[in-house]
């Protein structure tokens, strides 16, 4: 069976990543498409993560910052999640859950505990142009409620909260 290139029409052998004639990528050709009449499936599979990003949800800490400082910021700004950076690289994430599991009732002096001792290391992240379904999948598979959104160079852009996804869905529901 041959695969016809959607760009130049050349017939390529099956399994090639790029068209031999024009180098057009053939990878996305076999991706499943959302069914046309399904509003939700369309919304989640085609809308990019940037539709969820408000620009207000970003908090960044350093690995050496104390937990007392993190908690103070959470309380003042009513936030639940902070990204932990070391030398411009994302190394961890701290949310309320980490504080319950690794701080509450375990450490008495919060100013002596460092962010790097409490954080969940190497969090999964997404890019702005990824479809929302990527975020949904990461949250469902990993049980995360927050997923960092990063730029190509690893710089922090935002944190997508599970509520942002729910809100996005329910706003589609109301339009009906």
């Amino acid at each position, binding site marked *: 069976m041959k695969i016809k290139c959607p760009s130049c029409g050349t017939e390529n052998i099956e399994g090639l990543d790029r068209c031999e004639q024009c180098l057009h990528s053939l990878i996305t050709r076999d991706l499943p498409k959302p069914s046309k009449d399904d509003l939700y499936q369309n919304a989640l599979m085609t809308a990019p993560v940037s539709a969820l990003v408000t620009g207000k949800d970003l908090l960044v800490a350093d690995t050496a910052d104390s937990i007392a400082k993190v*908690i103070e910021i959470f309380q003042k700004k009513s936030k639940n999640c902070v990204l932990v950076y070391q030398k411009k690289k994302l190394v961890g994430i701290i949310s*309320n859950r980490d504080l319950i599991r690794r701080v509450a009732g375990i450490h008495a002096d919060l100013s002596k505990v460092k962010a790097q001792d409490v954080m969940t290391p190497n969090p999964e992240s997404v890019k702005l142009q990824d479809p929302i379904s990527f975020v949904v999948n990461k949250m469902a598979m990993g049980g995360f409620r927050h997923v960092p959104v990063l730029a190509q160079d690893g710089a922090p852009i935002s944190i997508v909260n599970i509520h942002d996804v729910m809100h996005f869905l*329910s706003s589609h529901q109301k339009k009906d």
Partner: protein
Amino acid sequence: MTKPSVETLLKEKKIYQVINPKCVTTHPDVSIKQAINVMQENKSGYIVVAEHNQCVGMFTETDVVRKILGKDVSWNAPIRDFMTKNPSVLSPNDPVGKAIELMGDNRFYHVPLVDANGNLSGVLSVRTLIRFLAEFYPTEVFNLPPDPNQVMTQPEGG
């Protein structure tokens, strides 16, 4: 066989069909210390506070972080004073779509489920909902490499 659309599923699927049977509950008079122990043991971020099988409040990790950690609070105080009183509830017979709306609008992580007689019958977590939603999509979408257009410079394993 045609699959029903997500839209129909959200309206027709009931909460009791998707929930995880686990529900962590305590009495409102337990101390903060005990409550945090219960959360750590159960790996839960919430406790449904119930008295005589009636839900009277929710005590969550957000309450602990905002009202207790780093503050001058006695850890022997009862959670009654720190819980969120009279939380919004759902019925196990409500459609999943209603739960998504409530959680998205109010930013709840957990909502207690109360049956027609006012008895506590479970809890719905936002993560249960997202797992339910993730089942709607073809798995191939998620198994893509992070950058589908990446060209490998060496053969596999090289």
